[in-house]
């Protein structure tokens, strides 16, 4: 029989996070700090609206691009929160999570041989999606000394004549890094100079702890070059509802809608009704969750400071990214021993790109009680490693 598989797919490495979790499942006392989704339940009024839509029999497909009311509410929301104005009828597409937007955005934009710039460490799916779209991923290694922000120089250095698109993943998973207005302005200048496009993945936008999140689409001359991707998973704790969206120039959204139409039909209807309620009446829920995350973030930073562990202060998402280079082992070794000896699972930075070597991703989408126990164990572990080293 001949090989049933496509080489392009077989060649893609599976995500490296999985193996840890298989071990965790076998350990009753293990604490996982590995999950990348909120620990909060979806706010009740949002769930209620989903239930109500089912009661009323709203169980049909919506239009391919998504419910009109939802697209309008998304436009209101983006205008209110990031000061960018979109035409709901032509410039918005509702997708199955933000992740579908990433996939079909790349497929709609990239020709074979086109280069897409992917700053790393970052979310694990950009690179495989780029490959599946036929593009050539070019990695930009972000640096701790820049607090894992992308600098104009780094961008400039990575650009070739084949470069077409930059993926801009901030606030960042796994580092928690953000890009502030001045950082984005420098990037925008390079983008415009080289006539490039940006795919701005702003799924963690609402989880910004310094100033309010700034979208690169809001900078002069950038809206026409930017696909803005966001969704409901992180801001409203709606991961399981699978709902996100892409906004951008109508030529691109139109082609994305075509792929979405043939591959997906439309995003889940119940989720779309619930999402309308989230956008209309969910600002307070976001604020409450943001406050809770922020307290945990401060708690972890304080814990690292007490154990003398180096960590830049991250102002976004729900991750901290401490440096473990002082122990002279790889991220993978550290994470493996941490799990085996203290039953705490954290994800090695290398799962998010080679430049994550020497770092650990710790998620604080966990209750304070759990984080407290985890930090006690971490302190003990760090002490032990230091003693081992000094011997």
């Amino acid at each position, binding site marked *: 029989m001949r090989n049933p598989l496509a080489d392009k797919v077989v060649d893609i490495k599976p*995500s490296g*996070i*999985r193996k840890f*979790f*298989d071990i*965790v*499942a076998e350990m009753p006392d293990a604490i*996982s700090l*590995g*999950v*990348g*989704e909120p*620990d909060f339940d979806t706010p009740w009024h949002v769930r209620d609206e989903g239930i109500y839509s089912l009661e009323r029999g709203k169980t049909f497909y919506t239009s391919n691009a998504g419910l009109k009311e939802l697209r309008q509410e998304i436009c209101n929301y983006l205008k209110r929160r990031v000061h960018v104005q979109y035409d709901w009828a032509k410039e918005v597409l509702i997708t199955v999570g933000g992740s579908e937007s990433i996939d079909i955005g790349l497929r709609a934009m990239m020709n074979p041989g086109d280069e897409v710039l992917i700053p790393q460490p970052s*979310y*694990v*799916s950009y690179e495989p999606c780029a490959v599946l779209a036929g593009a050539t991923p070019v990695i930009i290694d972000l640096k701790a000394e820049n607090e894992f922000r992308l600098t104009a120089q780094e961008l400039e250095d990575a650009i070739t004549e084949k470069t077409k698109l930059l993926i801009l993943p901030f606030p960042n*998973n796994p580092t928690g890094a953000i890009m502030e207005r001045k950082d984005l302005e420098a990037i925008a200048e390079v983008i415009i100079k080289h006539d490039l496009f940006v795919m701005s993945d702003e799924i963690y936008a609402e989880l910004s702890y310094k100033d309010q999140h700034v979208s690169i689409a809001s900078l002069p001359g950038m809206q026409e070059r930017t696909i803005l991707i966001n969704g409901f998973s992180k801001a409203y704790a709606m991961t399981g509802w699978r709902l996100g969206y892409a906004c951008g120039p109508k030529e691109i959204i139109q082609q994305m809608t075509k792929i979405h139409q043939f591959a997906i039909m439309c995003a889940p209807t119940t989720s779309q009704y619930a999402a309308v309620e989230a956008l209309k009446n969910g600002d307070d829920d976001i604020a409450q969750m943001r*406050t809770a995350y922020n*307290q*945990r973030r*401060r*708690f972890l930073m*304080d*814990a690292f400071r007490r154990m003398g562990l180096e960590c830049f202060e991250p102002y976004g998402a729900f991750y901290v990214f401490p440096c473990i280079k002082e122990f002279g082992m790889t991220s993978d070794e550290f994470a493996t021993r941490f799990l085996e000896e203290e039953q705490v699972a954290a994800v090695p930075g290398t799962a998010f790109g080679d430049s994550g070597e020497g770092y650990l991703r710790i998620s604080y989408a*966990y209750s*304070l009680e759990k984080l*407290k126990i985890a930090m006690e164990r971490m302190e003990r572990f760090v002490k032990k490693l230091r003693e081992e080293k000094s011997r």
Partner: protein
Amino acid sequence: MREELLAIIEKNSRIGLQELAALLGQEEILVANELAAMEAEGIICGYHTMINWEKTSIEKVTALIEVRVTPQRGEGFDHIAERIYKYPEVDSVYLISGGYDLMLILEGKSLRDVSNFVSDKLSTLDTVLSTATHFILKKYKDHGTIMGQKKEDEREMFTL
């Protein structure tokens, strides 16, 4: 800092100073001073424990009592409220808008205990016009806490 501080200790009054300061991103001494100030100002009135008595072997009965009273000249409802809240078995007293005036929450050892209080002490006060007693059969949620429910982390391991 006050609002955030109060929100934290309203849910967990036993939190240590060091942790509290870390959560707020403040110096411990500042947080300690703020707590002391709010105690002095009467903003923080006590630190209580939520107990689900149903899970103990101790018998307790809780009743909500609606009370209609005649307000007194110059005193309004304050004087009669004071007469009532001085009874130690009275847990809470609220002045209410609507069909009646005061709402009491009363804790007693038994139904008889509560009914004795109502018939002997409460109803016999001159200014009390009428009472209606509702016994609480089950507490589902109290002070924002769902009683007896410990939620497990159901999130499945995921690859991102």
